[in-house]
């Protein structure tokens, strides 16, 4: 205890976000009252963010195993085998709240955090993706947030030197008070060079490396406690500011130290900083750790042990170093102009012992902080609002008077329109691996020195999840896998980022539980393990929760990089085929959202077997070299998918299509349904394609031909849409920019 520490009481514990029961449990585990620093440790490690206390029981359902999984959930990131001695590390994280408070730095530090999660495993990050959600695009606040978030991501990623190869941007009023910023990162590591966040080897020294510690982002609870009233200004935790340059140095220094073999274990100091590292690392290894805080490099004066343990200053790592190799580590970090200071050592007694100037300020069993953190199984309840929403029949609305105008409005809708404004601010090529840049269904990167490539995507249609969390979440998995299939890849693994409201509300927890069930079911059916992920709860303002948004990040493998396929039509004369079933719906569709500003109805059902077969058929056609393009039909239905295939490539090309009628024309053109892929087939491959589709036993048909300067859509012989390429390209290219430009 230091003299300045406030007295620990139940009130103080409550102010730290702990419950009375949790506080009792802490006393029981310790056999005494906690010290102030210990209270800080428990409040951080038992927080939702670190302990997953409301989500753990549900997350157990996720399938996480497969022969190629080298590391499942539980580490900083998941890892799958790519063959040829290479492995792929992947993980996605949210930085929603910080990005709302300070969009630029919030998003930037979000990128910084996910990069560290990847290189802490020993991997070099090779690509990021960003999945973003904002409120009403008409609101000036939204414009300010997008501007800040995109430039924050751009600044951090570009400066660090990692390409951004994909992502999404979607809008719905429910994100007005709580935008979502999810960033995914993938990295490459040699299979036999994987590092883990484990404090092995009693007696091994513990090194603090990287940036200095300040009072950045210290647990908000500190502010709530009355003790800090005088001098509160100085004590106030400050916003985390990113330093991508230091992160780049940290990357190079860590990889160099790892390559030399001096590193035993490593973890990044992210949420809950040193507190988290110094308990989780020994906990995973069944050891203990002792640290002396006076040795921690600081950039502010007068920091207390509590503050040093809980600081969330960026660009720092904790290393366990092989005894006797200390000098090597110091030399490498000095070369990269970074601090590397021995602050403690691994012990065998299972305790975390924290000292400040020799004086003991905390002594806790690491398991008490980690394994023994509370886990809740809180009640769930199906929301009452769903019945009325499901009862709505979109076909009760009148048909649009003008289908061309309707298509142009959809193409110009900010969720559908080109996101070039976003990704041209991101470096997309550094590393010279990017074979398919942002703007197609998935980003594709080669693996140098092999014939292979990987494809990566993020997907989630939150409207569908809101209307049916089970199926909507399954759909997100299906869509991500479909985007990979369209690019020529076989899915390898999922990393997820589950953004929801407060789990203390039974309806929200029900959404969450159903979404997990949906993800699990889809991952089982498509045989894709979940290897890492993140849960972000409490995404709400004034009791208004966001749309439930389980974002699925997925990585896939192309055995032959030459298989990579893009979404746009290539040559006049190619036949256009639609692979997949006819089941579509306007329930929860973009069409309904844009033309009627309504979120209601029932999305079309997902048949996971059909989904799997359609994807397999698409991949088979690609691998056999039978298609020039492949694009899945998602938001906006078939009409939008066809228009995108015409105009999203380097050179626009028209198409003439006769669509099978599915009832009303709005349903035929704009109805959304799973498992549907538009491909274009060169004439020479037509016969072979037909027989392959027959073998695959999937529903499919030719629907038109590529060519000309127009997009013509006919149903039952009558022309519903005949628009020049310039018209559709203009709508699609300017639709997003008009809100941000």
């Amino acid at each position, binding site marked *: 205890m230091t003299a300045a520490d406030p007295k620990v009481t139940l009130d103080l514990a409550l102010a730290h976000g702990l419950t009375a029961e949790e506080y009792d449990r802490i006393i029981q585990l310790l056999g005494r009252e906690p010290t102030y620093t210990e209270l800080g440790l428990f409040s951080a490690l038992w927080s939702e963010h670190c302990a997953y206390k409301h989500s753990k029981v549900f997350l157990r359902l996720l399938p996480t195993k497969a022969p190629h999984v080298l590391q499942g959930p539980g580490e900083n990131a998941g890892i799958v085998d790519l063959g040829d001695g290479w492995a792929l590390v992947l993980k996605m994280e949210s930085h929603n709240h910080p990005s709302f*408070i300070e969009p630029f730095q919030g998003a930037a530090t979000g990128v910084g955090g996910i990069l560290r999660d990847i290189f802490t495993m020993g991997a070099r990050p090779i690509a990021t993706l960003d999945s973003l959600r904002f409120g009403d695009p008409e609101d000036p606040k939204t414009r300010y947030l997008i501007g800040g978030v995109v430039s924050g991501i751009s600044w951090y990623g570009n400066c660090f030197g990692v390409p951004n190869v994909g992502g999404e941007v979607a809008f719905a009023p429910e994100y007005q008070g709580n935008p979502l910023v999810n960033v995914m990162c993938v990295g490459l590591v040699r299979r036999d060079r994987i590092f883990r966040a484990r404090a092995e080897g009693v007696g091994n020294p513990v090194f603090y490396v990287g940036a200095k510690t*300040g009072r*950045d982002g210290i647990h908000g609870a500190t502010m709530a406690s009355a003790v800090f009233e005088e001098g509160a200004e100085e004590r106030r935790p*400050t916003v985390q*500011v990113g330093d991508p*340059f230091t992160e780049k140095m940290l990357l190079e220094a860590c990889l160099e130290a790892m390559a030399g073999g001096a590193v035993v274990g490593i973890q990044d100091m992210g949420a809950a900083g040193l507190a988290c590292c110094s308990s989780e690392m020994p906990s995973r290894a069944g050891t203990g750790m002792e640290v002396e805080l006076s040795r921690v490099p600081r950039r502010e004066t007068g920091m207390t042990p509590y503050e040093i343990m809980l600081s969330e*200053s960026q660009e720092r790592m904790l290393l366990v170093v092989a005894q006797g190799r200390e000098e090597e580590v110091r030399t490498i970090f000095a070369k990269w102009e970074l601090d590397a200071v021995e602050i403690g050592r691994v012990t065998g007694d299972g305790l975390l012992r924290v000292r400040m100037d020799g004086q003991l300020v905390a002594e806790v069993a690491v398991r008490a902080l980690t394994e023994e953190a509370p886990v809740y199984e809180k009640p769930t309840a199906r929301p009452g609002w769903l019945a009325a929403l499901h009862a709505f029949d979109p076909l009760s609305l009148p048909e649009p008077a003008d289908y061309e105008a309707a298509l142009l409005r959809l193409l110009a809708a900010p969720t559908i329109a080109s996101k070039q404004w976003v990704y041209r601010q991101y470096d997309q090529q550094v590393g010279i691996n990017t074979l398919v840049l942002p703007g197609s269904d998935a980003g594709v990167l080669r693996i140098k020195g092999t014939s292979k490539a990987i494809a990566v995507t993020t997907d989630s249609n939150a409207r569908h999840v809101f209307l049916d969390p089970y199926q909507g979440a399954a759909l997100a998995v299906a869509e991500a896998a479909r985007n990979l299939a369209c690019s020529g890849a076989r899915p390898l693994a999922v990393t997820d980022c589950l953004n929801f409201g407060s789990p203390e509300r039974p309806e929200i927890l029900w959404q969450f539980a159903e979404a997990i069930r949906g993800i699990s079911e889809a991952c089982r059916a498509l045989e894709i393990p979940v290897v890492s992920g993140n849960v972000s709860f409490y995404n709400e303002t004034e009791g208004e929760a966001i749309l439930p948004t389980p974002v699925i990040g997925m990585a896939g493998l192309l055995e032959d990089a030459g298989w990579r396929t893009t979404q746009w039509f290539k040559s006049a004369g190619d036949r256009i085929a639609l692979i997949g079933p006819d089941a579509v719906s306007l329930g929860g569709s973009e069409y309904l959202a844009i033309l009627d500003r309504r979120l209601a109805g029932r999305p079309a059902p997902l048949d996971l077997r059909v989904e799997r077969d359609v994807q397999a058929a698409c991949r088979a056609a690609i691998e056999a070299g039978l298609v020039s393009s492949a694009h899945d039909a998602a938001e906006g239905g078939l009409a939008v998918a066809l228009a995108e295939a015409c105009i999203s490539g380097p050179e626009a090309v028209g198409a003439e299509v006769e669509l099978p009628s599915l009832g009303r024309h709005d349903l035929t053109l704009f109805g959304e349904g799973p498992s549907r892929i538009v491909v274009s087939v060169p004439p020479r491959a037509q016969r072979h394609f037909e027989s392959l589709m027959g073998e695959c036993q999937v529903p499919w048909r030719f629907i038109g031909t590529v060519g000309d300067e127009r997009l013509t859509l006919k149903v039952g012989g009558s022309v519903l849409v005949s628009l020049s390429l310039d018209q559709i390209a203009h709508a699609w290219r300017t639709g997003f920019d008009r809100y941000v430009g």
Partner: protein
Amino acid sequence: MRARVFVRLKRGILDPQGTAVKRALEGLGYREVQDLRVGRVLEMELDATQPDQARGRLEEMCRRLLANPVTEEFTVEIVEDGGRPRLA
């Protein structure tokens, strides 16, 4: 009337730019620099005659646009025509 608005990071907030510049100066032999922080200065020509009123407007501009209240603080200086600066 001329005015200057200084916008700087709040105390305690990391200033990576300042740190890098300080280190570069050290490398060039300028070891007397103990602490260095980088800020923005907006120099303006105002169509205004009342310094106090102008100052009020400038402070409002800072709160509304020029400074980020989460990370930055600001000061406003009025330089009366041809005169010396008056500190806030």
